[in-house]
């Protein structure tokens, strides 16, 4: 594809922001409205395959992301028709213009990445990324995006990263919390090597390929169970990434957990540190307590933040993690986790809020460094 190398950062004054200062929204959702929308981005062979097989008429909604569930879109952000997140004007007018972030990272969770045909999945991902660049990034200078990659073939995923890495508006690689193999497994390392080469964090979003049930006891009856279980999936990611030595192998790599719920992490690490003390000889490349590795390498986007309302858990999280650098502001637009504009559970003028809104995302995404705080001034 043709990469726009002349990309410039947002014009002055683009973002004053709801929070009275510069901000990055690290997780907003955009959505491919239909398979048909991807046809212009396919080559002749694939376009014909899609048309003759009726693939263009299929829905590639994901089981872990049902479009009509109340959680998937707040009523005021739901388009009158089509998938939530598929309408640019809603994102712009109801969200970007209201919250006024200097940058918002768009994540496209799409079933096409989960196809069993590794080639078709890869082709769809390439098409989705072209579509993101043309139909979203080109339309609003505040938007950034995650690179969508095929989740069943790490080599093809790495190729897609190489193809996209020249476009600075793609700021991370997108994976799901629950795939076929735990995220730390060496099978995934070609993805991490490619991301590492280009200074791209790995964004791990809630979601499942359903190669395995979300509950270890098997398949439950309700979407609610599986949604709650996303946090367990992330907990497994922590265990796997650290134990497999991903950060020993790629010391500069960062992972961003998106839509994880956040508050489960401290207790998970108490336990992980404890176990490590006794059994670390099994994984001798883990040389410091896992909590320290997590503090250095894993970030979490804010929404949804699991706490009883007003319970002060965000401050407690930072105390318990001994770090105020781990949480990145996000709204999870258009998902329905908060009312009105109450996306931040602490005062916007607090020092912690400045870290979460601006410093932490900038410290996480090297490609956001082109943004300067003056933009918001």
């Amino acid at each position, binding site marked *: 594809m043709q990469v726009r190398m002349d990309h410039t950062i947002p014009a002055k004054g683009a973002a004053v922001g709801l929070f009275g200062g510069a901000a990055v929204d690290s997780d907003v959702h955009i959505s491919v409205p239909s398979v048909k929308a991807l046809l212009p981005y396919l080559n002749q062979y694939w376009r014909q395959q899609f048309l003759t097989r009726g693939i263009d008429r299929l829905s590639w909604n994901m089981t872990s992301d049902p479009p009509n569930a109340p959680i998937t879109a707040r009523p005021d952000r739901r388009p009158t028709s089509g998938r939530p997140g598929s309408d640019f004007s809603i994102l712009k007018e109801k969200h970007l213009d209201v919250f006024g972030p200097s940058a918002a990272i768009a994540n496209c969770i799409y079933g096409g990445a989960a196809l069993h045909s590794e080639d078709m999945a890869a082709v769809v991902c390439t098409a989705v990324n072209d579509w993101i660049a043309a139909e979203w990034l080109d339309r609003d200078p505040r938007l950034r995006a995650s690179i969508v990659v095929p989740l069943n073939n790490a080599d093809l995923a790495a190729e897609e990263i190489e193809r996209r890495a020249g476009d600075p508006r793609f700021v991370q690689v997108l994976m799901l919390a629950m795939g076929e193999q735990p995220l730390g497994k*060496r099978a995934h390392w070609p993805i991490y090597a490619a991301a590492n080469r280009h200074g791209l964090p790995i964004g791990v979003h809630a979601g499942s390929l359903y190669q395995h049930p979300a509950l270890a006891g098997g398949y439950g009856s309700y979407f609610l169970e599986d949604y709650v279980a996303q946090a367990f999936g992330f907990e497994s990611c922590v265990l796997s990434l650290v134990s497999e030595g*991903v950060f020993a*192998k790629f010391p500069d790599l960062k992972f961003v957990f998106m839509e994880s719920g956040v508050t489960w992490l401290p207790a998970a690490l108490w336990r992980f540190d404890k176990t490590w003390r006794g*059994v*670390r*000889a099994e994984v001798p*490349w883990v040389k410091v307590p896992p909590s320290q590795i997590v503090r250095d390498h894993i970030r979490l986007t804010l929404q949804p933040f699991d706490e009883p309302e007003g319970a002060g858990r965000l401050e407690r999280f930072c105390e318990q993690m001994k770090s105020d650098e781990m949480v990145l502001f996000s709204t999870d637009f258009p998902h329905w986790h908060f009312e009105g504009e109450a996306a931040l559970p602490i005062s916007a003028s607090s020092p912690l809020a400045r870290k979460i809104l601006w410093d932490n995302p900038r410290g996480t995404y090297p490609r956001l460094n082109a943004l300067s705080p003056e933009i918001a001034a």
Partner: protein
Amino acid sequence: MSKSRFVVAKTGDVAPGTSLRVNAGGRDIALFNVSGEFFALGDRCPHESGSLCAGKIVGFAEADEPGKYRLVRDGEFVRCPWHGWEFDIRTGKSWCDPEKSRVRAYQTGVAAGSDLVEGPYVAETFKVSVEENYVVIEI
């Protein structure tokens, strides 16, 4: 406070690569023989007080990168019999938390029975015989 020296074992009581619990001055002490050198640690794990004497004597597992395993200093660590914390027999330091979790390490020495008979030693449980060598701990 002046230190006392206790005769705690005959050198032959603790074969190389093994440990023995001894008592000196009312304290439980784990005595280790690492290839002929003797080391004495408090026999009480700082975690939940497992007896280090019952722990396996092991080497230290290292890796420069994932999948590249290597064992070093074989026989110089003891794994607590309960939760497996590893202690450096030479220093009493726990590898995972050397600052906060360590056991007391005591000075040890070997002395000939003939010397002991005259020296300032406390031999609580031993009849010292001039023909043998003894492990002596300073407390």
